[in-house]
């Protein structure tokens, strides 16, 4: 089953452990700036922390932009072939999410290779903000929230062993179809 890296920015604390483990395993050095993933932190308007990492696009813009055909897709992983790359950085500018990186010590631009199916950033993230999930689950969060929006959520209070509790349930009948103005 084909899997994909996906990030949940709401969970990210910006600690950059993902950058560290990535750089150590790929570049062999303790240098977060040589990682194939980068955490962007915006503050204060809005407050966002977000790991940027290659989406492994099926029709990659970086490949389109490459003048030397140095970018190929193999087993779902977008790869830059070092021997063909002339390091013109066209791919860096072409990537719609900025997930191809450059460092002055490194000749070829670098990007996520998904660690042969065992992404280190996923297991290392202390906030579980980076997930490695089957492709067909992408968008699941939105599907779930759509379902919840459809239902008219109600709360009922009750007592159990003298302790007040709340139960949430969906009042389907008073809900409405999507787009129904009622």
């Amino acid at each position, binding site marked *: 089953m084909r899997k994909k890296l996906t990030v949940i920015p709401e969970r990210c604390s910006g*600690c*950059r452990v993902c950058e560290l483990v990535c750089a150590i395993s790929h570049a062999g050095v303790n240098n977060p700036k040589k990682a194939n993933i980068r955490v962007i932190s915006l503050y*204060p308007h809005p*407050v966002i*922390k977000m790991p940027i990492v290659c989406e492994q696009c099926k029709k990659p813009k970086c490949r389109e932009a490459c003048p030397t055909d140095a970018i190929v897709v193999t087993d779902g992983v977008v790869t830059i072939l070092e021997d063909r790359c002339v390091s013109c950085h066209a791919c860096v500018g072409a990537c719609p999410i900025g997930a191809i990186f450059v460092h002055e010590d490194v000749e070829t631009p670098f990007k996520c290779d998904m660690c042969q199916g065992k992404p280190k950033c996923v297991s290392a993230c*202390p*906030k579980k903000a980076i997930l490695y999930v089957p492709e067909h689950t992408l968008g699941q969060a939105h599907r779930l929230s759509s379902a919840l929006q459809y239902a008219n959520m109600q709360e009922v209070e009750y007592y159990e062993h003298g302790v007040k509790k709340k139960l949430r349930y969906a009042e389907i009948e008073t809900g409405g179809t999507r787009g129904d103005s009622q």
Partner: protein
Amino acid sequence: MSIKGGYFMKVLHVDLSECKTHVEEVDEEFALKYIGGRGWGARLVWENMKEDTDPLSPENIIVIAPGPLSGLYLPSAGKTSFCSISPITGIYGDSNIGGMFGVELRQAGFDAVVIKGKAPELSYLWIDDDDIQLKSAGKYSDMGSIETEHLLREDIGDETVKVASIGPAGEKLVRMACITADWGRNAGRTGMGAVLGSKNLKAIAIRGTKDLPVADLPRLTRASDKAYRKLSQHNLFEFWQRQGLMSVIDYANTAGIIPTHNFKDTHFEEADMINGDVMELEYKIGDTACFSCPMACGNVNLVKDGKYAGTVIEGPEYETAAMFGSNVGISDFSAILRANYLCDEYGIDTITAGSLISVMIEAYEKDLVTLGELDGMALNWGDDESIMEMIRKIAFREGVGDTLAEGAYGVIKRWPQLAPLVNHVKGLDQSAYDARVAMTMALGYATSDIGAHHARAWPIAKELEMGANWDLNDKADLVIYHQTVRPLFDMLGVCRLPWIELGFDENTYAEFFSATVGIEFTLEELLKLSNDVYNLTRAINIRLGLVRDDDRPPERVFNDPIKTGPHAGKVLSRDEFKEILDIYYQRRGWDQDGIPTDETLKTSALEEAIEYMKPKRKAV
């Protein structure tokens, strides 16, 4: 013995008066003797100091020192120390900062920066790897810290640039001014922001790209993989990510140690309105962590409605919430967030500001100051609007704020009648833990090398757990142990919270350090070096005129019994304090005037300090 990693062996020296910089190679003996961070800072301050140096003069230096572990793959390695002679206490001062700033400095290839002199105009230092420039900061004048950071990064045009800056308070030499980096991480204590201000240095911006040297990276990685796994398995791990230090409010209130109404009391009736649960449920919009830290104790909060709507702030943590909550009688969490925001933006220490404002409220309550002396503004417990105005007045040195800006000593100098109300040691206001319930905490505050701060020793929890009736010798030993192990974290450039809060084994740091430098060290050896630095900062302070009488806790600890809560009626005995101080000095190898003996200085390889101590000793 040869260092194979951990250091670039380079210190950047900046002379602002001459607009000159040069890089000095560090020798191995220095590097390993003082480790880094506060250790290096203290040593460099010692070498530069003169007995009569005004902390706010160009002659004073400020050292910015991460540690050999800062920036490495291990838990919570984002710490950097700022060390100098403090303008608020007049003795050695240091304060450290989390975030990413020090990591960037290390990536630029420097283990530390030493800044002296005074720039001819308001400037910022731009460290772009090896390219160092001093640039005009005129356009950032009087600008808040967070705004300065934001704009400076935008002007440089690189979102990865790290910035440490001072707010208007630092520029105006407010003695409690802090240094802020990464949007609200503060080197809050001992007035390091005023030292930068006195040098006309508004900010330091850094971009570093270098690999950090590690002797045995696979070994460090193995130890760290294990360390991260261990921390994540702790049963409080997720709770820490959710509430961070805000969870301490409930603990401190239940334990009866939360400062309430200027430390008059230690129990706050409305604590459940300002605790971690309130923050989490009503205000928190994001988590934030320092570099490489899995605990993510930082909380970003937003006030969504009411008069402070729109306030976004990283914080508060416990100290700020207590000092601007219970200690000034505020039970509206949104007002605490506002106070936190104003202090960060203006660039002042929340502990000192909260403490001195509460002093003025109590003074007004007791008719010890007139309305006129408060610029006609009545100050009452919980009056959040007047409290916000006081913060502004301190930061801009307006009216009564000009006196508060001088710190505890300034307040006492103008109003000697307030001396019993000011809870300070050596001019530094006490942190948010009451010492009346624990002799060890009183001793910790009294003998801390920078004044009444909990960073050096926090034995209060242990004493509450043990009960008060244990041997004074053991109590003194506990304080010394704390004062040895806790500063070690500041020397290594890491945070102590994994150890304190999640029971992380301190021996692991010896493994991290050994793997990094390529020389085997045990924890005991590192602790010995930390203890040597404590003797060094003591020697600095003795040279600056510190005497035994300065080693005493705030007066209230002895003469004002706690009003309510589990410890109602409690005060500490002055005689018992004298007794434990005698024991403490003796166990530290200091004479009965608190001066390290010649033998102690020799054991700490500080022979050169002996001649400086001589004139300070009383004729026998």
